């Protein structure tokens, strides 16, 4: 099982087998184009899509009520709402972490950036664009919010952050469809916090041009070491292909299946998500986001890129660099690494 954004990293090392031969028309129709894009590198398919992470904004209904906020639909509105809450003495509006790199990349793509352009038919060529206006804009936005004290700077996958969520230190979380599963497993939304969260579509940079984005999502890949790739592909494609497994997946494992039969079913859409106090979050937020999602092009060195991005955010937090400088540093670091690893950076 592999997270979709790491597939190119393994594919370029020759670790994954191409299973496009085993994907027939009926299997292909079960997943959206965006889902297939995420597990493909060029024309080859290197994983069977299982679940995804269409992004949305989850927020505390009690905080929004107390401070009279309606869920913001654009990032400008988000900033205004954050300022309102802060001025009235409320909690932090959100969080800008160093360890949520995939989310930051998604927001940059939402703003129109294309961080990586990579085609494995020319495996030596790669386009890296991490410091263009759109990418810098996103980093500048969040740097401004954290400077003004509107959002926190805690690492997102730590007990510290979860404790903050339980305490009500954050009014919103820019999150994905797997959040209910992850957070409720960690203890958020239980006890006093029960039913206080709701989901809303993610704010947009341009209200006239909404872009759906994704964070995470896993696939079952067949390794190149497999001596029976056809059988392995059958298993990979078949594990979550039947109704019972899929239903168990979204009901009990709280994953967000990408299978169209689930996404189109009334059961899934009308499901009253307990974490959101019974809100039909799938119908309202996540299914439309999943269907509108076109897929991202991930880099073939996700590990290095995420670490460079985490470092960039850390320097912004420490005041050692402005967002613009941090983006420039990151661009040169990643480009240098790519060149050293034999790529030709376009």
């Amino acid at each position, binding site marked *: 099982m592999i997270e979709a954004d790491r597939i190119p990293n393994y594919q370029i090392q020759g670790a994954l087998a191409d299973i496009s031969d085993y994907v027939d028309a009926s299997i292909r129709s079960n997943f959206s184009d965006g889902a297939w894009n995420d597990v493909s590198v060029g024309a080859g398919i290197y994983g069977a899509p299982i679940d995804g992470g269409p992004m949305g904004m989850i927020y505390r209904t009690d905080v929004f009520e107390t401070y009279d906020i309606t869920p913001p639909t654009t990032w400008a509105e988000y900033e205004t709402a954050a300022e309102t809450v802060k001025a009235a003495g409320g909690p932090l509006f959100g969080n800008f972490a160093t360890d949520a790199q995939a989310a930051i990349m998604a927001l940059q793509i939402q703003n129109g950036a294309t961080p990586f352009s990579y085609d494995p038919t020319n495996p030596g060529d790669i386009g890296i664009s991490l410091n263009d206006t759109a990418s810098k804009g996103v980093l500048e936005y969040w740097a401004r919010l954290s400077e003004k004290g509107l959002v926190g700077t805690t*690492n997102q996958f730590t*007990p510290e952050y979860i*404790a903050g969520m339980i*305490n009500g230190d954050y009014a919103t979380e820019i999150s994905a469809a797997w959040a209910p599963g992850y957070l409720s497993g960690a203890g958020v939304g239980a006890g006093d916090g029960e039913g206080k969260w709701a989901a809303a579509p993610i704010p947009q940079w341009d209200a006239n041009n909404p872009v759906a984005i994704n964070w995470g999502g896993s696939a079952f890949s067949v390794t190149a070491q497999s001596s029976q790739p056809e059988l392995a592909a059958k298993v990979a494609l078949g594990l979550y292909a039947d109704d019972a497994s899929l239903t168990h997946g979204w009901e009990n494992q709280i994953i967000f299946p990408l299978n169209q039969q689930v996404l189109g079913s009334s059961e899934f859409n009308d499901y009253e998500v307990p974490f959101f106090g019974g809100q039909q979050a799938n119908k309202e937020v996540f299914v439309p986001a999943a269907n509108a999602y076109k897929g991202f092009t991930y880099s073939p060195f996700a*590990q290095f890129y995420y670490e460079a991005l985490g470092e960039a955010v850390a320097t912004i937090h420490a005041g050692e660099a402005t967002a613009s400088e941090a983006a420039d540093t990151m661009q040169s670091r990643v480009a240098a690494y790519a060149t050293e*690893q034999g790529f030709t950076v376009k």
Partner: protein
Amino acid sequence: MSTTTKQPQEAGSNSAPKRKLRTKRRHTVAGWLFMMPFTLVFLTFLVAPLFYAAYLSTFRSALVGDTKFVLFDNYVKALTDPQFLDGVSFVLRFAVILIPLQMGVSLIVALLLDQLTTKFAKAARLMIFLPYAIPLVIGAIMWGFLYSKNFGPMGEIFGLIGAIPPDLLSRELIFFGLLNLVTWQWAGYYMIIIFAALQGIDSTLYEAARIDGANNLQIALKIKIPLVTPALVLILIFALIGTLQFFNEPQILKPLAAGAIDASFTPNMYAYQQAFLLGDFNYGSTISFVLGAVVFVFVYIFIFATRRRGGFML
């Protein structure tokens, strides 16, 4: 007129010299057989991987393109790599502050405990040794929680005097956060070593000194410390080797420290990142060897410096 001649021996009989030779050979063989398990494990798990890593370090691999034989180019790259050099500079700075601190703390505590013979002293000895009994990883995780703003006691303690608690996991203070953690873990161990050495001092020396009119402090400075210098040198070398290879604590605190600790914070972490996170085993092996060379050089300097003088003779 008696001559001693060797009795003519029949072949294969139990003559004295032959018996000795056979027994000696049997003992030699037995000795090697006893060594065999250890030797096999040693060769398989220490020597062979070292050679293999050395072999790997002479190649360079890349995500695009083949693995090339580059002989010592990797070593040149490591020695001019700013991330590696930063890591080395950090562990050296850390060692310079940590080792005197650790040795000072453990020496003072050992001297104090040697002075007292009450039950409290015994209990104190156990308690000071206890952190060493806690596995390193658990200790680091525990301190991660103690340092955290939400879970740790610092907020309350500093709140009592109305001050803001320092964030020992921040970029500015992470040095001290790690210093505190490592001293807590190792001071007990070093203390026991010094304490054992102190027990080995002949107590008549103390009597003689008391007759000469020395007080406790003078006894400690002029008699006890000089006589435990071999133990101190031993601790110094252990601490040096361990600190230059610093890995566990920063690696565990990395996710909690929100960017204060990066992947190349110490040379060992950098080697780990290169080999296991980025898949570049060749460069990772190179860094390990260069780090090993750095450790070897420093330990050799220290052993040489403390060889004749045997320590800090006053």
